[in-house]
């Protein structure tokens, strides 16, 4: 018995019997296999499906450019927003896209700090998703300012009248939060890419590819005197990004929470927005990664275990979001604020947008509850359908929060109704085109999974692997005798 205990302690956690964990990379793949499989995606011809998705994405991106030109050349009147609903789809879509970005940083930073090694298979693609989502998000407030050529007023430089920005305004906080978020995400993503770019450089056949990958790889030599600083840089960036990601959506929620509009003026907004962002972001990661996994044969790297973990995070954050919805209603009922109570009465019972609320509640709170069942978590079709409900639900949530509250505020005299115009609809579709186009190009030209990080979690990459092996053999032999 004593012997068994010592053996158990001496055995590598991934290999201990009884508490055996499923390996992170299935089928005992070698280092070389990991390189070949991931670089192969970039080096081989793309499957037909890639083109089937890419062409419509480019067309939709063209629609986005068209609507933007139409908007600027005609005026913001082509959008449906007006008084009292000045923040229509533009801000709804901004919050929707910026929220999606959060899963990428959560995976790359928070899961890194908490030593969740399974993140290595998903972090690269999620970070790319973050960048593209934030790019899509940035378009909306940029054009929502009305005169796009005046957008430099947002930057901290005095305008023509020598007046500076109002640093007390949440809207300016938002400018700083979102631009910092984008910049830091780019830095984090790029530092992570350097070793993988070196791998692509060393494998490249054509001179152009070698030159470009080589240029961006900065002459990386994988030296351990470099790795030790590199690892410290990665750790520090993770530690910096963790509070950053929590701050970004909190600051976005301040745009609403610091106003006095009933339905916006609530203290629950920052945590509620952050939970919702992670929830929606994970749904988008799965929406993108499930087809990628199937299409490029990455089942051994992006395993069912990953799907299981991610669906559980969706379940958790979705339930937190559900709690926030119900708590908002409870406070409106219990808080003795007549306007707040009315805002929620309008929102869920008597107002023109009540069906949006029902859609939101069904998609975000009720449908993800299927993830309590392992059968649902392990069926990829079910997962794919549910996460798409979540994607839609998160858009509805932002719609419910934004136009519903301002359409009916204090005085019935200023009540109005907001409906989006075709320009807004096409623009929103256009950002999906842009997002998909960028993501497909990312798959085409860059390693979709972090090669060096996945190598680091293989059992054989542990320098003490042979010793663990020997111990395991010894223990097995001991068991055989008993």
């Amino acid at each position, binding site marked *: 018995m004593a012997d068994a205990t010592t053996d158990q302690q001496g055995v590598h956690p991934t290999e201990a019997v009884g508490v055996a964990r499923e390996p992170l990379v299935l089928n005992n793949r*070698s*280092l070389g296999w990991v*390189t070949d499989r991931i670089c192969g995606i970039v080096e081989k011809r793309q499957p037909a499906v890639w083109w089937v998705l890419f062409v419509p994405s480019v067309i939709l991106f063209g629609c986005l450019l068209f609507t933007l030109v139409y908007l600027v050349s005609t005026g913001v009147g082509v959008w449906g927003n007006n008084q009292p609903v000045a923040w229509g789809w533009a801000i709804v879509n901004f919050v929707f896209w910026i929220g999606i970005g959060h899963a990428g940083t959560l995976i790359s930073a928070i899961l890194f700090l908490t030593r969740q090694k399974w993140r290595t298979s998903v972090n690269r693609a999620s970070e790319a998703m973050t960048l593209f989502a934030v790019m899509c998000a940035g378009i909306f407030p940029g054009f929502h300012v009305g005169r796009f050529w005046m957008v430099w007023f947002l930057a*901290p430089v005095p305008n023509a009248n*020598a*007046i*500076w*920005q109002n*640093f*007390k305004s*949440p809207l300016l*906080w938002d400018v*700083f*939060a979102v631009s*910092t978020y984008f*910049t*830091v995400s780019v*830095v984090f993503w*790029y*530092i992570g890419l350097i*070793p993988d770019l070196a*791998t692509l*450089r*060393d494998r490249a056949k054509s001179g152009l590819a070698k030159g470009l990958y080589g*240029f961006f790889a*900065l*002459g*990386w*030599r*994988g*030296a*351990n*005197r*470099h*790795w*030790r*600083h*590199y*690892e*410290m*840089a990665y750790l*520090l*960036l993770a530690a*910096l*990004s963790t509070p*950053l990601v929590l*701050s970004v959506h909190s*600051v976005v929620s301040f745009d609403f929470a610091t106003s006095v509009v009933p339905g916006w003026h609530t203290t629950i907004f920052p945590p509620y927005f952050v939970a919702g962002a992670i929830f929606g972001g994970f749904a988008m990661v799965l929406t993108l990664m499930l087809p990628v996994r199937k299409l490029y044969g990455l089942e051994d790297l992006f395993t069912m275990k990953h799907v299981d973990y991610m669906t559980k995070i969706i379940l958790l954050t979705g339930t937190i979001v559900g709690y926030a919805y119900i708590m908002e209603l409870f406070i409106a009922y219990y808080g003795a604020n007549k306007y707040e109570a009315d805002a929620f009465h309008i929102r869920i019972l008597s107002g023109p947008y009540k069906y949006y609320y029902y859609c939101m509640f069904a998609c975000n709170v009720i449908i993800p509850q299927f993830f309590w069942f392992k059968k649902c978590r392990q069926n990829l079709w079910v997962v794919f359908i549910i996460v798409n409900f979540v994607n839609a639900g998160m858009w509805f949530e932002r719609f419910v929060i934004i136009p519903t509250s301002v359409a009916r505020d204090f005085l019935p005299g200023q009540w109005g109704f907001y409906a989006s115009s075709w320009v807004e609809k096409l623009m929103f579709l256009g950002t999906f085109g842009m997002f998909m186009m960028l993501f497909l190009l990312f798959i085409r030209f860059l390693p979709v999974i972090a*090669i*060096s*990080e996945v*190598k*680091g979690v293989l059992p054989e*990459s*542990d*320098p*003490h*692997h*042979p*010793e663990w092996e020997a111990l395991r053999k010894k223990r097995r032999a001991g068991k055989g005798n008993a």
Partner: protein
Amino acid sequence: MFGYVAEFSSASELYHAAEKVRDAGFKKWDVHTPYPVHGIDHAMGLGKSWLSAVVLCGGVLGSFTALALQFFTQVALYPTVVQNKPTNLFTLPAFFPVTFELTILFSAFATLFGLLVFIQLPRWNHPLFESKLFKKFSDDGFILVIESRDPRFKRDKTRSFLEEIGADEIEAVVV
């Protein structure tokens, strides 16, 4: 001659070889691996990376830049009385978000540029890129390099030393 490039069969072999090279007293040498091998810093006799100190300086600089920018423009230069907020020292809470964001931003830049300075990259040409064996580092090779400028380097002795500590293949890099 730049030095010897030696390949080892596994992370474990490389780890033990690194310990021996360290104990033999070499200084101008390094291991090149496809991923950061856990614990090999110790086997090489390297300490903690002090990149964190650079990043701390970046963060402090960011905080002060943000506070200076906000107090200078909002309190000293052009006080705008809006949102019922004061325009004096007590405006501080309203300045907190931007201060936080700039702290993070400056720290991130300090990390990136500090890293590049510490590891002396970008450097697109290097004698090691002439070696075919060396290129395996980015795939599945575990490479150990001893440079000829190391005072203990001897053309024949170092080669046999590398063979002794278990190198599978050795290549001399000549430039």
